[in-house]
């Protein structure tokens, strides 16, 4: 019996069943595997962990029955059929709900509707009892019997706060609960022979096992009062069954959403007749429309007892015999055989991180050391997507993926990035990987660095594009005709220039431990990658490049970069260049060229020229672009005077006299131009008679 796999997804498993499962599996295998599991833990790199704040509940015993509801992720501890109390605890809601109910017999199944509005309790095979938890509504229990004659209720699932589905051995019945009227209204029902069923609350899909062998699965989808039948499909059994008895167990099937798509996961055990090297998990993609297709095969390369979880879009397969787990990422490259993709596990098998059970109660003696938790225990029950329950110890955990240890397990940086970019909490880890690959002792080669940058920017560009097309739709007012339009979500995988600058590049350049050649090559590689994805490079990156080049006196290199417009034109960059003129004179020319190309910086050009006393050049420039009628005469005369060149002053003065004549018919300056000082100076140097005479017609 020890070869039986533990149930991967035993929906609303009552405590009795859980205890039964534990008994069935026996403890021998677990103890054997213990040593090996420790070995795995010591080798480091435990990338799976139980959550730090588990839900603790009173463990199952003859007077206390424990139930788990996958939809609300709540544990129910029912003492003496509810008469001495029911305690409901959830992973998300930290405040337990406690109440009492009349003991009307053994509870088979107990669940709250969504939002804890209505409690449903199944005590018999024929009916389900209801109790309102809505304030100011009738508090008396009411009951619904299943409609189908002679049918036995296998269980029920809430699909919303007031909608419930009964699954019987002869079909399903979809009801609306009317709490005020304390009654139920049948919305729809469907006759079908059911061996067992499974519910995925995330996608509101119920899967029914039908036919004698049980391997034809019929999914139903529920949404706001409607029930739709999806196309049924057949699970390929590993070997032709010898007899016509149920051959597909619900323990080998799980449903989970991976990368936004619903999959049915089938744990296909190793069979001696087939040539497979071990068990495998077969993924069937279950689309909302269209038929279900076998799409992925996950190779486990081992045999024995397995359990499945789905965490952060990774399929986690626990192996009880070795007390280790492996993970698969279906987005990563696999071997495509024309219809399905075959995947090997991404990371080497590792045990779940050792876990210490905190000694119960804050009032307990503090000197008592925490007890190490027995991992992969045979009393563990696993629920989708990420729940692990230890019925014997009274704990419920969610399983978590730790990304830091992964960094040292996936040595191929390209593959590591592919993996990390798909994870939820990846940003800081990715940034630290980037920092790491730029510094000793684990400095990566430029081609590796380039690969990583390209992968990051690919993701970054995807987001920018989505954001851009969203903005465009909103701006053109098309959003009203498309209510489904949503602002693109910025995931942690979007690592933008500012992230890279703040956490990686600026730190790296400041450390100055790498040879400057490498530093510059890295910066250029990042800019190359941004350009390759047509992402506009931010000014601060250019500034960083310039700063680094200037620090190492690599002005000629800088000059060449500017010459080929690798550092794109902008006013701030032009100003930065101007500031470099004293240490690198050609920066002046580079800056002026840039301002000219910008074509919006004519004022700046005039200022630069005037500051260098190139008054004539400034005047010629402004005249060339046709702006000489609106410039301030005073500004130019000031500059001409500062140049201490009398002929220059004369020329400029004359120019403005002529302008005055042309614009106002009189060469003299108006008081508003504030040029009195210059007129006086002109008279002083060249004499009163040198002033231009008004032309009379």
């Amino acid at each position: 019996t020890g070869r039986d796999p533990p149930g991967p997804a035993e929906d609303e498993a009552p405590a009795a069943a859980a205890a039964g499962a534990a008994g069935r599996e026996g403890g021998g295998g677990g103890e054997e595997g213990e040593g090996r599991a420790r070995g795995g833990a010591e080798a480091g790199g435990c990338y799976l962990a139980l959550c730090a704040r588990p839900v603790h509940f009173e463990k199952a015993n003859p007077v206390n029955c424990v139930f788990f509801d996958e939809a609300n992720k709540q544990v129910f501890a029912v003492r003496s059929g509810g008469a001495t109390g029911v305690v409901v605890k959830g992973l998300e809601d930290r405040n337990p709900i406690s109440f009492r109910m009349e003991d009307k017999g053994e509870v088979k199944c107990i669940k709250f509707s969504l939002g804890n509005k209505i409690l449903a309790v199944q005590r018999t095979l024929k009916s389900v009892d209801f109790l309102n938890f809505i304030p100011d509504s009738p508090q008396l229990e009411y009951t619904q019997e299943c409609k189908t004659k002679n049918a036995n209720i296998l269980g029920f699932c809430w699909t919303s706060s007031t909608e419930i589905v009964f699954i019987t051995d002869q079909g399903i019945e979809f009801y609306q609960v009317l709490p005020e009227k304390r009654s139920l209204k049948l919305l729809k029902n469907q006759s079908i022979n059911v061996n067992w069923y499974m519910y995925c609350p995330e996608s509101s899909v119920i899967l029914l096992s039908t036919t004698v062998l049980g391997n034809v699965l019929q999914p139903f989808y529920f949404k706001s009062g409607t029930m739709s039948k999806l196309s049924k499909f057949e699970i390929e059994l590993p070997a032709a069954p010898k007899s016509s008895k149920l051959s597909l167990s619900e323990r080998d099937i799980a449903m989970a959403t991976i990368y936004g798509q619903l999959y049915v996961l089938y744990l296909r055990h190793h069979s001696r007749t087939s040539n497979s090297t071990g068990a495998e998990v077969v993924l069937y993609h279950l689309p909302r429309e269209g038929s279900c297709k076998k799409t992925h095969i996950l190779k486990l390369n081992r045999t024995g007892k397995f359990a499945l979880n789905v965490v952060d879009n990774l399929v986690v397969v626990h192996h009880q015999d070795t007390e280790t787990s492996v993970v698969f990422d279906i987005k990563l490259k696999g071997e495509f055989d024309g219809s399905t993709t075959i995947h090997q596990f991404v990371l080497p098998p590792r045990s779940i991180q050792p876990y210490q059970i905190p000694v119960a109660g804050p009032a307990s003696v503090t000197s008592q050391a925490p007890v190490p938790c027995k991992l992969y225990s045979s009393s563990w029950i696993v629920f989708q997507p990420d729940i692990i329950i230890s019925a014997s110890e009274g704990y419920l955990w969610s399983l978590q993926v730790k990304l830091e240890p992964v960094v040292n397990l996936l040595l191929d940086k390209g593959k590591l990035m592919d993996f990390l970019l798909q994870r939820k909490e990846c940003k800081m880890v990715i940034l630290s990987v980037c920092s790491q690959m730029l510094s000793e002792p684990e400095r990566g080669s430029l081609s590796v660095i380039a690969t990583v940058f390209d992968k990051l920017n690919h993701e970054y560009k995807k987001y920018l594009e989505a954001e851009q097309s969203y903005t465009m739709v909103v701006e053109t007012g098309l959003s009203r005709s498309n209510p489904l339009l949503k602002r693109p979500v910025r995931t942690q995988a979007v690592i933008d220039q500012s992230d890279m600058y703040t956490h990686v590049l600026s730190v790296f350049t400041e450390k100055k431990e790498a040879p400057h050649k490498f530093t510059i090559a890295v910066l250029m590689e990042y800019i190359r990658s941004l350009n390759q994805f047509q992402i506009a490079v931010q000014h601060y990156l250019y500034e960083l490049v310039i700063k680094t080049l200037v620090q190492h006196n690599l002005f000629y290199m800088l000059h060449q970069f500017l010459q080929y417009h690798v550092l794109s034109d902008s006013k701030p960059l032009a100003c930065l260049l101007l500031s470099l003129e004293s240490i690198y004179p050609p920066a002046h020319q580079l800056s002026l060229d840039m301002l000219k190309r910008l074509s919006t910086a004519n004022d700046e050009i005039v200022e630069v020229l005037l500051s260098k006393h190139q008054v004539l050049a400034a005047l010629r420039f402004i005249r060339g672009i046709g702006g000489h009628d609106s410039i301030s005469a005073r500004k130019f005369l000031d500059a001409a005077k500062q140049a201490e060149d009398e002929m220059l002053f004369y020329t400029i003065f004359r120019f403005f006299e002529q302008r005055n004549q042309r614009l106002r018919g009189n060469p003299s300056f108006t008081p508003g131009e504030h040029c009195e000082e210059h007129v006086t100076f002109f008279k002083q140097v060249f004499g009163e008679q040198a002033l231009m005479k008004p032309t009379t017609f």
Partner: protein
Amino acid sequence: LRMAAAGAAGQEKQLAPTLLSFFIYNPKLGPKEGEEEKKILFYHPNEVEKNEKIRNVGLCEAIVQFTRTFSPTKPAKSLHTQKNRQFFHEPEENFWMVMVVRNPIIEKHKDGKPVYEYQEEELLDKVYSSVLQQCYSMYKLFNGTFLRAMEDGGVKMLKERLEKFFHRYLQTLHLQSCDLLDVFCGISFFPLDKMTYLKIQSFINRMEESLNIVKYTAFLYNDQLIWSGLEQDDMRILYKYLTTSLFPRHMEPELAGRDSPIRAEMPGNLQHYGRFLTGPLNLNDPETKCRFPKIFVNTDDTYEELHLIVYKSLTSPFSLPDTASIPPTLEFCRKLDSIVGPQLTVLASDICEQYNINKRISGAEKEPQFKFIYFNHMNLAEKSTIHMRKTPSVSLASVHPDLMKILGDINSDFSRVDEDEEIIVKAMSDYWVVGKKSDQRELYVILNQKNVNLIEVNEEVKKLCATQFNNIFFLD
């Protein structure tokens, strides 16, 4: 505005300027009377009698010394005589280089007898002074400084090196075709879009990383520079060497086609078209010699001695990694070939594609309407539509030498003042020459239109600036 008129040549025969002598001396080496010969480090032609050598050196010394009394920091640079012109250059303290060029001669026939008329004012000081300076730069590139040679092996070593280098180099001077471009000694840059440029950057950085003895890399395409890891001054002279000497020498066998002996010698090299222009000819021959020319860079600063590796892809980009003082081995060459060869072939096709796109957009395929020379002192960028492709022997101007001389004259004018200037010259037979100087840039345009006036010429040049130099701050 200046008016210049050049008369058309009649039945006379013109004899081009030629190199009369070229010598290098150091007055400190033979300060005592009777020991003057010791001062002379190199003398061309060597056949000249000893006393004449001493006399000529002494004369130069005297002139320099004499002019120093008037201008202590800027002694004479050239001496004009009826028959020749002498150029002086002191590249390192107390080391003087002197080049004596015979003025061009017009041979006339009078009463059936040839009469020689020396053209005293034909040669441009700036052009030949620059040629002399380049002689030194080129020597220094391949031999290091004079002083370093003295330190390494005394006067004997220096003399040997000078003899070895200049003996061959002086034959390649071609004084008759020197012009404004020799003054600039500029670099022609290959126009390229940002992305392709960044790809090249990335390629170079990765190559330098994987071949860690490669210290600097320059990247050229079509004889034009795209990237230089070397400093500007070193690149300037290396560029000159590559484009006027090394590349042209390797051009002829390539033009001979695929069946040429060089290709036949390189079997098993089908996956890419790379080969070494310096170093081993055949990588598959274990006996092949891996000798690369040494070059000296940053001589003012770190004084680096490097090996010059020139690697070329058939599609014509050149990559020139310069390596550190460790001599490259055959194994290294094979590694370089295997890393660089295939990538370079891919890059070359990228560049070529980009180049053709640019050409189509700008419509530059047509013969340029204007004949112009552009030079930017800041990055040494040079562009000429006047000169035809450089050949191993000479770079030829496609306009009359008299026009080239006007360009040279304008340039001399420009170099006298700092301010921006513009000079328009009406030359012979409907030619106009315009020179513009804006900040550190110079532009020379030659126009040939009948019956145009000054204003129209000015308009034409404005048009040229608007189309060719739109990207830069170039005052109209």
